[in-house]
């Protein structure tokens, strides 16, 4: 079906469902707890019966005891909009890096699990803004569309999360779960970029992709470092001390990114491209309580 996910791995994903910490705001039936009461399995409250209510929810035992018609209310299980934003800027796309490939795989996992859980899954690729979008789809049969979308992505441009969020969520999206898959090598401040998310009340789960070559580059001597996004050249004479300083700064960058998401109450996982994707993806998602 797809080159992104193997059949075996998809079979493992069949038994996994998304676990959301907060009630969702979906309008259609789904498998997530909703703030609305209605048809559901979990008892929520009683209320007096009024004409027009579904008589199937009348609590006849209470009527027998109190001689009043009382209606049982259940938490309605609804779907949730899942917005999977895949960073397809140039920094993701080095041939030997694997970050972009891993991002697409990770998005495919999320989309697959979301569609299995009857959630509305939207796929968005972004760089300086929204580049390509697959509108919200429900149902497992939409998986082929999602895979096709992901496979058709090509990386280019600079990363600008703030623009992307304003462009996409400014259109009045239903509050939902926002997966951001990126390397987070941003010129902008994270707080500034994620401000629209805060405003619209979305839940965010950040997936930070790390290339070991970025963490500890194998360069020495006089080099001209060309930024893959901006094409800005930077001459540098790389020495051991320079590399040590770089590694220290990169570690600080990772820590700052993780701290930002944790402090915001959002989920955060980091995936290294040199690790086994299937294992690390599932482990980290389960560890973060996203998968059950």
């Amino acid at each position, binding site marked *: 079906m797809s080159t992104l996910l193997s059949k075996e791995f998809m079979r493992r994903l069949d038994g996994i469902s998304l676990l959301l910490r907060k009630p969702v705001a979906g309008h259609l039936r789904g498998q997530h707890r909703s703030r609305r009461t209605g048809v559901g399995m979990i008892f929520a409250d009683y209320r007096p019966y009024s004409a027009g209510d579904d008589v199937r929810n009348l609590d006849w035992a209470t009527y027998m005891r109190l001689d009043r018609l009382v209606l049982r209310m259940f938490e309605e299980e609804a779907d949730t909009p899942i917005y999977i934003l895949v960073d397809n800027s140039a920094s993701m796309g080095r041939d030997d890096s694997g970050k972009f490939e891993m991002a697409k795989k990770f998005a495919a996992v999320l989309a697959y699990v979301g569609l299995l859980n009857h959630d509305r899954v939207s796929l968005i690729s972004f760089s300086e803004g929204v580049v390509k979008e697959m509108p919200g789809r429900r149902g497992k049969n939409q998986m082929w569309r999602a895979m096709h979308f992901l496979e058709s992505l090509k990386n280019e441009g600079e990363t600008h999360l703030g623009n992307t969020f304003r462009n996409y969520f400014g259109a009045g999206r239903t509050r939902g779960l926002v997966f951001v898959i990126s390397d987070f090598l941003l010129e902008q401040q994270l707080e500034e970029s994620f401000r629209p998310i805060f405003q619209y009340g979305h839940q965010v789960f950040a997936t930070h992709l790390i290339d070991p070559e970025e963490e500890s580059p194998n360069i020495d001597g006089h080099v001209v470092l060309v930024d893959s996004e901006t094409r800005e050249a930077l001459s*540098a004479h790389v020495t051991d001390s320079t590399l040590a300083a770089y590694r220290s700064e990169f570690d600080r960058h990772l820590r700052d990114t993780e701290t930002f998401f944790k402090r915001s109450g959002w989920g955060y996982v980091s995936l290294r491209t040199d690790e086994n994707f299937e294992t690390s993806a599932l482990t980290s998602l389960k560890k973060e309580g996203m998968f059950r």
Partner: protein
Amino acid sequence: MTSIALSSPLFFFLLSGLIGLVVLLFFLRPPVLNRLMPSNLIWKRILGSSRAINERWRWWLSLLLSMLIAACLLFAAFRPVTNGQTDDRSLIIFDNAPSMGALTKDGTSRFNVAKDSLMGYLNSLSKDMQVMLVDTQRQITTPSFGSISQATKTLESLNVGSSLDPLVPSQVGTINVSRKFIYTDGVMIGSVPEDFTVVSVFQPVPNVGITQLSFAAVPSNTQQRQAFIEVVNGGSESQVIEVALTQTKSRLVTRQVELAPYEKLTQIFDVTDFESGPVKASVVSNMDLFNADDVAFGYITAKRQVRVGLVSNNSESKMLTLLGLMPRVVLTSLTYPDYQGLEADKLQFDALVFDGVSVDRKPPIPAIFFGVNSANWSDIPTVPIRSSQLSVETGAIHPVLRNIPMTDLLIESGIVFQPVDGIDPLLTTEGEGVLAVAVPGAVKNILLGFDLDKSNLALLADFPIFLSNSITWLVDEPPILNSKPGTIRLPGDITKVYRIDGVDVPLWFADGSAYFHTRETGLFTGFSSNGPLRVSVSQLDRRFSDINKSNLPSLELSKNFVDPVLNGYSLSFLIGAVTLILLMADWYLYHRRIIQ
């Protein structure tokens, strides 16, 4: 005083090397590796903090250095002439001492190297420049500031001089010009004013030369003669040389000797087989770049025995004993009647000695007269000595009085001669007159106005020498005049001077003397009514052969030697050196400007 010099090949070599270095540095620059990075975000953070300020400064400094390097290379390539100074006068002392005639390793002389250098400098000056050229041999009689063309003509007319005492006129030190140069090898020239810039043409070269040459009879055997030759090695390397004395092809003696560096060696040659006449001494060496001192000339005087007739009425006189003891003299004693009885053609003598005998006519052969009471035949007026116990002075330097002080001579009685033209006073007394005279001419005479018995002359230790000198002067050729190249002063009666090859040498007369000029060594003969005068011209002087005694730096010389100081290659060289320094600084910055 500074000494700077640079030949053009050396300059071009250095300039080419510099350019080559620049090109080499360009190709040796670290290869720039372009690395495509996902993002320079982290790199900019770690590099930006330290580079932000320094990089800007480094960039400007690097730009400045690059511009300076480019300017310097342009200046060095086009060799700008610094004629823009306010002072448009140059004072140049040109050393043309004999040592400047030494050859360099290039085969040209120091003189020509200096001349070419100065010519190049003159040609590089602007047309309105005023130049004063002064030489150390006074060939330029009235130095003055003039145009460059005049200086060029003057320079063309200069030659290597012969004076071993080159003179730097003291007045040049007082001339206030900013450009003062002296072109010299620093060997013979004396002190140089401090503010002169020395352009050195000195180059150590091997040299051997003759510094002394003389001939003398062996005291114990008047028939044997010896030549004394002093040779010196003026170079810093040992040399095996051949010393030769040549008169004719058949009369040639040679000897090989080894000379240590700067060694002086005296060699004695037996020249008994040589005839009287000119002799040439020479040294031959495989390594000798100064030929002027390789040849010396001399004359061997007549060595025959002298037949002397002593005319005296005293058969036991001291004169008889003295003359009899002189090895050179073959003595015949005569009485005055015997002498009168002999006809003129029967006088088989070279000289006559009249001891206390007055004659009434002049002898046909040279003679010396002791106790001339009356010498009417000589046309020299005489008067008796008025006082006794006269003290005598020997004023004139005459061959007869050579090496004789005669300070203790006392006279009891006699006559004195009145000075007339054509005679040479030998002994004079204060207030009385001339006691002894020498009469030159074809037949020479020496007249003494006192008897030996009336004086203590015969008792003096100088008397045998006086007698020997007198006989030598009477019978021998005139003494040989040894001189150095240059202007040579001769007696005033010399009317002609010929070189040994027969060429007539121009003479001029001044102050009662005759003069001729020669720049080359050789043999000359002057003629007068008194007979020939041999003149030997040789550079027999140790100073002449010491052509390497210079404190100036040795230089690699070139025919295209160009003024090293104000312009041309030296300035280019300096600019090139500055360029090299700037290049190194830029190279350092090139590394540093990208280093964290």
